[in-house]
């Protein structure tokens, strides 16, 4: 409980991200991974979680839209690019810890699980387990996928060579 409110108040004071609190950065990184997880990965992790607390929904899961913005010329003034479906959930655990999650798409179960793990992450007692058993393996898979993509793309890089013709 205190963890959640502490993180939140830290967030408020640092919302201009001049110098974000280390805990906040770590939580954001975990939430980013949870948002990119597969539904199955989170469902399996929750299934196999020992000492599962009772979970009460505070908001959602609910699906809505986020208008994605771009920048003209790539780095200029913002413009509204187009919308995407987004699902969000807020849950509270039996110990009072509150967790939030947002992710692209319409998968409500996935986002509810992500919110549960966000709550468990904020609890000092379970943070390590969430990092090690949930976040780390998913991050590893995502990193490996990105690496694979980069290497496949790199194989299509053009190596130019010049052909010298004539005497000089």
């Amino acid at each position, binding site marked *: 409980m205190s963890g959640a409110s502490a993180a*939140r108040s*830290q*967030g*408020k004071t*640092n*919302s201009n*991200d001049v110098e*974000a609190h280390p805990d*906040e950065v770590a939580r*954001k990184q975990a*939430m*980013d991974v949870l*948002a*990119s997880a597969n539904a199955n990965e989170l469902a399996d992790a929750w299934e196999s979680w020992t000492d599962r607390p009772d979970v009460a929904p505070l908001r959602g899961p*609910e699906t*809505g*839209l*986020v*208008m*994605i*913005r*771009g*920048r*003209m*010329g*790539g*780095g*200029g*003034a*913002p*413009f*509204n*690019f*187009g*919308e*995407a*479906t*987004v699902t*969000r959930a*807020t849950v509270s655990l039996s110990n009072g810890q509150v967790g*939030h999650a*947002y*992710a*692209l*798409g*319409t998968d409500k179960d996935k986002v509810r699980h992500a919110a549960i793990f966000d709550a468990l992450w904020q609890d000092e007692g379970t943070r390590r387990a969430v990092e090690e058993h949930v976040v780390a393996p998913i991050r590893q898979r995502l990193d490996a996928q*990105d*690496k*694979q*993509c*980069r*290497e*496949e*793309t*790199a*194989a*299509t*890089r*053009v190596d*130019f060579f010049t052909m010298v013709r004539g005497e000089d």
Partner: protein
Amino acid sequence: MYVAVKGGEAAINNAHQLLADRRRADRSVPAMHLEQIIGQLGLGIDRIMAEGSLYDCDLAALAFKQARGDMIEAIFLLRAYRTTLPRFGYSNPIDTGKMLIERRISATYKDLPGGQLLGPTFDYTHRLLDPELMQDLPVDAPKTREAETGQAPRVSEILAQEGLIENDGDLPDDHQTGDLTREPTEFPMSRDVRLQALSRGDEGFLLALGYSTQRGFARSHPFAGEIRIGEVDVEIDVPELGFAINLGRIRVTECQMVNQFSGSAKSPPQFTRGYGLVFGQSERKAMAMALVDRSLRARELGEDITAPAQDEEFVISHSDNVQATGFVEHLKLPHYVDFQAELELVRRMRAEHDRNRPDGNAGETPNDKLEAAE
């Protein structure tokens, strides 16, 4: 007097049942799964998402299947669906400079940091039908090569160093980013709203307009400075957290068109730019969008407006294929009363016309006969 007519309910129900049957087609052939559509007809899905202006592969695949492959019908379905959802907010602007690049080419610089990466392209294929695809033969895994580390800067940043190209495009600090899904369309439009309209505009329409600028209607000497395709993070500020989180990634195509510009009263000679940004892998659309974005900047740059592609109201009012199809296709709905009224009117006009003939002959002239025969 008009007597209201009802009917057709049974016919409509049966027509829709027939549609479901024709959509399913031969029952001995397995039905398509959405995963197959997303995986194997991905560029079609990308187009539906781009012009539906809604990024969701699953919903786009469902719409594609439901519409029997009719793109505009699928786009219409997606647009209709989005109206049922609440808006949670606006994302922070995506950063295409941090893209996980899947393709990146420049027609202006051979050697550029990050290299020319062809990616999964149709370019340099011979456009010969491949009979092997009629069977489900195994496909080799793609080749890999160690990837360069470090970012691939946008080509516009490289050109900017010499000062011969205009910057990315700014609007006044107090400018509220326009949103055509929320505000009525007004002309003249600011460039941000135009870009939103172009990004969801019909690919064929924008392609034709872009082509027209190349052929001399608002000639603008373009080069494809850069095209890049890949995934970018979508980040949103979450008020209950007090910091921004990633929602996941989307695939986009960005085109930086660079145009020679000989200067005007408003701007010195330099390279000007057109910008294209489209959901998914949609290279043709991004290029067409960039051409049209540039031509629509005529007023801003002090160019003469002489061609359709420079006419903002003409282009933006007709670029949306859902609006266009709605108005064109409404013509097939019953217009019995309108037509009766017009029929009556034309009969009266014809009678009057015949009465006023100098020879008083009410019969048909040879000319009328010719038309009827045609």
